[in-house]
Each structure stands twice: as C-alpha cells, then as structure tokens.
C-alpha cells in the first residue's frame, strides 16, 4: 500500500516537474518571441521611415556647397534602356538627390574626421582658416557644371574624400600660427587637409 502511495506521489512529482518545465519553456519561448518581435518592429520602423523619407522627401536639384547642378532623372527611350543608360542614370539621380543631402554629406565628413586621432607630430599650420563665402543664390548657379571649382568650401563636406588626399589649394605663409615654422615660403612636404578648415603641413 505504502509502495503504491509512494509510486503515486512520484508520478505526481514527475507530472508537476513536467508541467513546470513546460511552463518554463513556454515562458522562455514567449520571451524570445517578444524580443524578436521588438527587434523587427524597431528595425522595420527605421527602415520604413527612411524609405518614406527617400520616396516622398523633397529632392534638391542644386548643390550650393559643391556649386553644381545635381543629376537629373533620365528620359526614357528604348535604345538607351537596352544600353543600360536609363537605369544607370536613374540610380545616379536617386543617389545624388537624396533629401537633405548637404546635411548627410556634412555628417559623413565629420564621421570620417573622427575615425582616428589627430596627428600632431611635425605639423605646421601655414594658413588661416579659409574664408567661407556666402552661398550664392540658385539662379547664380544655373550655368555651373559638375566639374566647376567650388566657390564655397565646407571643409571635408563637399569633397568625397578629405582625410587622406592632398587638397587642391594650399595657402603657405599666411598668419603662421606655429612659431617653429620660420620659412613660410618653403614648399611643404605634406599637406594635411583639416576638417576644421585649416591647411596643415608637416616639415
């Protein structure tokens, strides 16, 4: 009799364990699913938000910082389509005329400027911060071409690549702020474009 009781109680315990385990597993699964759902909702919200912004946001047609007309949407004809020109031009247009383009370009420039630490060794500052012209009106830029020299320079913003390339214009010998640089007419060995607007050289 006692054996039977014992067996029954063991069975009951097993059953309780099983139910508890199932309940724990169910809870764990529910928690996992909730976390997955939250993940999808967050990512999809951002994804949808950017898609709507890209689709319905106002697309600029002129870049004042780069002083050029942005890419135009393609004109469709079958010959160009089969040559791949239509889709190519559309991709260029879509990428070049992103809403709030200059803001993103500036952000990219700042992001790249923060990919490391500023190199100080052997650097001589040879020029004052460049004067930033007032942006010209859109109608003034109507004849500008994509390859024209920028009238307005936002350091690092207008260019696609600033951190490693030698800038086009160097102004040596003006208001040398580093007292170690005596020979202001000396041609600098290396010119470092600076995102804060200065032109630096190393000797």
């Amino acid at each position, binding site marked *: 009799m006692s054996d039977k009781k014992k067996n029954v109680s063991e069975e009951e315990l097993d059953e309780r364990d099983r139910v508890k385990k199932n309940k724990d597993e169910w809870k764990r699964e529910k928690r996992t699913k909730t976390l997955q759902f939250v*993940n999808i909702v967050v990512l999809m919200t951002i994804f949808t938000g950017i898609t709507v912004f890209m689709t319905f946001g106002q697309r600029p047609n002129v870049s004042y910082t780069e002083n050029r007309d942005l890419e135009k949407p393609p004109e469709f004809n079958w010959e160009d389509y089969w040559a791949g020109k239509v889709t190519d031009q559309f991709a260029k247009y879509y990428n070049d005329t992103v809403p709030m383009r200059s803001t*993103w370009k500036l952000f990219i420039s700042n992001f790249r400027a923060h990919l490391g630490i500023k190199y100080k060794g052997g650097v001589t500052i040879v020029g004052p911060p460049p004067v930033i012209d007032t942006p010209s009106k859109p109608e003034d830029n109507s004849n500008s071409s994509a390859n024209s020299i920028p009238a307005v320079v936002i350091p690092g913003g207008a260019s696609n690549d600033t951190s490693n390339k030698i800038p086009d214009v160097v102004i040596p010998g003006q208001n040398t702020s580093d007292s170690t640089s005596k020979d202001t007419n000396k041609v600098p060995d290396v010119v470092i474009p600076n995102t804060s607007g200065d032109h630096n050289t190393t000797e």
Partner: protein
Amino acid sequence: MIFSSLIFTYAFLPLCLICYGLVKPLKGKNAVLIVLSLFFYAWGEPVRVGLLLISAAVNYFVGIGIGSVKSEKGKKGVLAAGLVFNIGMIAVIKYSGFVMTNINAAFHSEIPVPDIAPLAGISFYTFQIISYIVDCYWEKVEPQRNFFDLLLYICLFPQLIAGPIVRYTTIAEEINNRHTTLKDYSEGFTRFVVGLAKKVVLADQLHRIVDDFLGTNVGGMTIAGTWYGIILYSLYIYFDFSGYSDMAIGIGRIFGFHFNENFDHPYLCKDITEFWQRWHISLGSFFRDYLLPVTFFGHRNKYMSLALVWLCTGVWHGASWNYILWGVYYGLFILFEELLGKKRIKKIPIVIRHIYSKLVIILGFGIFYFDDTKGGLSNLGLFFRNLTPANPNGWCKAPDQISMCNNLFLIIAAIICTFPLIKWFGKLSERSVGAKTAVSVSGTVACAALLVLSSILMVDATTQAFLYWHF
C-alpha cells in the same frame, strides 16, 4: 544595382517586400521573386538577362535529359554536353580576351582579341548550375521538371551576383515548401543590417585608405606604408565579401530560404588549410565535392587533384596572371601543410601558427590585389620589394603616420570585428534570463544605430561596388 546602395535598400528591397507580402500563394510569391530577380539582374545592362535565361533553359533540358536517359553512357554524354556548355560559356565570356592577349604576346601573333564586357555574377550562377546538373547525374537530387522552379533557383537575386554559391540541394525543398517565421524575419533583418554595416561602415572606409596607399604609387611607398596598406586591404576584402554574404543570407532568410554560411571568422585560423575551411566556404566546398573526385587516367591522385583545385581556384577569381599565381601560392602552402601532417602542425606553438597563417594570408592578398588593372606582376614585384629592408624609400614617413593616426579607431574596430562577437554575445545571453534580455535589447539598439549610420554613409557617392561583383 548593388546591395549597399540607397536605390537597392530603400527602393528595390521595399518593393520586393511589399509585392512578396501582398501575394498569398507560394507559387505567386515565387513568380514575384523571379520577376524581381530578373529586373534586378537587368539593372544597368538588360541584355545580360537573355544569357541567363538561355543558360537556365539549356540546363533545364540537361537536367531532364539526365533524368530520362536510362543508360549510364547516355547520362554521361548529357552531363558532358551540359558541362561543355557551361564551362564554354564562362570561358568565352570571361577568359577569351585574356587567353588571346597572352597568345598574341607569346607568339607575336595578331589574332583579334574579343572585347566581351564582363558579366556580373557569371562565375557564381554558372557554378550553381554545374552543381545542379552534377547532382542530378549522381542522383542526389531529382531533376526539376518545372522550368520556373529551376529558374528561381538560378536567378534568386540575393545570391545571384556575388554568392554564396548555393547548392540546389540546399534550397530544393524550400522552393515549393517554405514559410517565414518570426525568427526568420528577426534574424534575417539583423543579418542584413550587420552585412550592410560591414560593407559601408568598415569596408568602404578601409578601401579609401587602401587606394591611397597601394593604388597610387606602389614604387614610392615606405616599408611601414606597404605593410599598412596590405593589412588594411586584407581587412577590407574580408568585410566587403563577408558583408555581401551576410546581406544575401539575411535577405534569403526574410524570403524563407536558408542559405549555408560562406564565412566563419577566417582570420581566427591557425593554418592555411583551416583558413580555406573558413573563407568563401561555398567555393571551397564546391571544389572539394565536384573537382577533388576527378580521376586522372582512371586513377585518383591526391596531388594532381590538389593542383587542379588550386589552379581552378585562382582562375575562377579572374582572367589575370596574379589570380592564377594566387591560386598556385595557396596550393603550395596547402601541399606543405599536407606533407607536414596535422599532428606535426598541432605540435607547433599556437602563437607561431597564428603568425605564420596571418603572414601567408596577408602576402597572398598582395598577390590578389595587383591584377592587370593595377599594374599586374611588375607592380607586384615592387610591392614585395617594398615590404623588405631592400625598400629604398625608408621605413616610415609622415603620410604613413598621419593615415595611421587619422584612422586609428577604424582600424581597431575592424580588427575587433574579425572576432566572433555575435557568437560570444550569444553565449553570454545563455547565462540567465536577464542576460538574454540585455543582450537582445542592446543588439536591437546597436542594429538600429548601424542601420541609420549605414544609410547616411550610403549617401556618399564613393561607396564602392562589391569586389566579388565582377567575379
């Protein structure tokens, strides 16, 4: 259209998701995927879709032929015809110009060199097709009787252009029987974002530096500059290609397909054999399964097979001598490790094994970098000279130091990201309920931040096309 472009991520992909979601029956979903995949492939050069369709049609009949012919000889004949067609197509499109140029150079002849534009992804989808017809011949799979189902396998846009090389056996079941779970959506989206960030945040930024060092004046580089450039190139190529694979696997997952992994943290390898078990796994396993069993005059020869596999690995990557040299280079190291034996290799201190493997990999990518468009073998010679004290330009100059300092955080982040961080966090999350929630929530926040950052960085027109795109 490349994955890491705004037009793909915020125009094409949403269009796919909407159309795919609106259609309910699976056949309809498959039709949507076929149409959109062909549209994707036609982007930029619609004519090439014709070649893809011809290839799919021919191989459909090859598969049916193999399945319906009773005799072994007949099956072999159909398979041989299929292989000749596929390899012939890739040879003509990809290698004919290279072969003719070299014949002209060797024999001072003037045979006209065909000027065939490179066809994006041809090496990837042709290898997929080859795996299908060989598997049909080996009776691993039933030949697909529905042309559109086979076409979906061949042209499915996530893996069409730059892999991974998906076997028909991997997705055959899922073509007509799949559903996307909550887990698939969550992990698929996360994987896509991680891949996008690898490409846009790491690879593209590294590429800018690599171009400034290796891409300009190889002869004038210092020792430090040369090492710096090639180490960053090794990081760049990993993030570029694995980023694409992550995006492909992620998108596939969203549509209910489960592709095999293509990378498994290759820079953690301790020897070159292990490296190739972790790098471009789908290509390595393709050669292992379909090329290693090849017999030579009726006999299997391990060393001949090894030579064939590594020659093909090199040639597969492109029509340029440096790729062939790259394949041979790896073949020699694999042979060396084979001769040394696994037991002996394991006895070598682990630090030395790591140094050896990283050195071989980094120098190997030096060979890989200098293809014919980048000066070829002559620049490769200068590159190897500049790595050594024979370099006349000195040890280190200011531009090297400037670039290293200006990109220090990027380099550290890139190195850290070569480690299996996600796996580590996964293990951490198993410790307790709280840890799991914390890891999951922080993962979501990190992914959201990476998605926003990648999207902004994509605005920059300098975003590079994927390196493996033209293979």
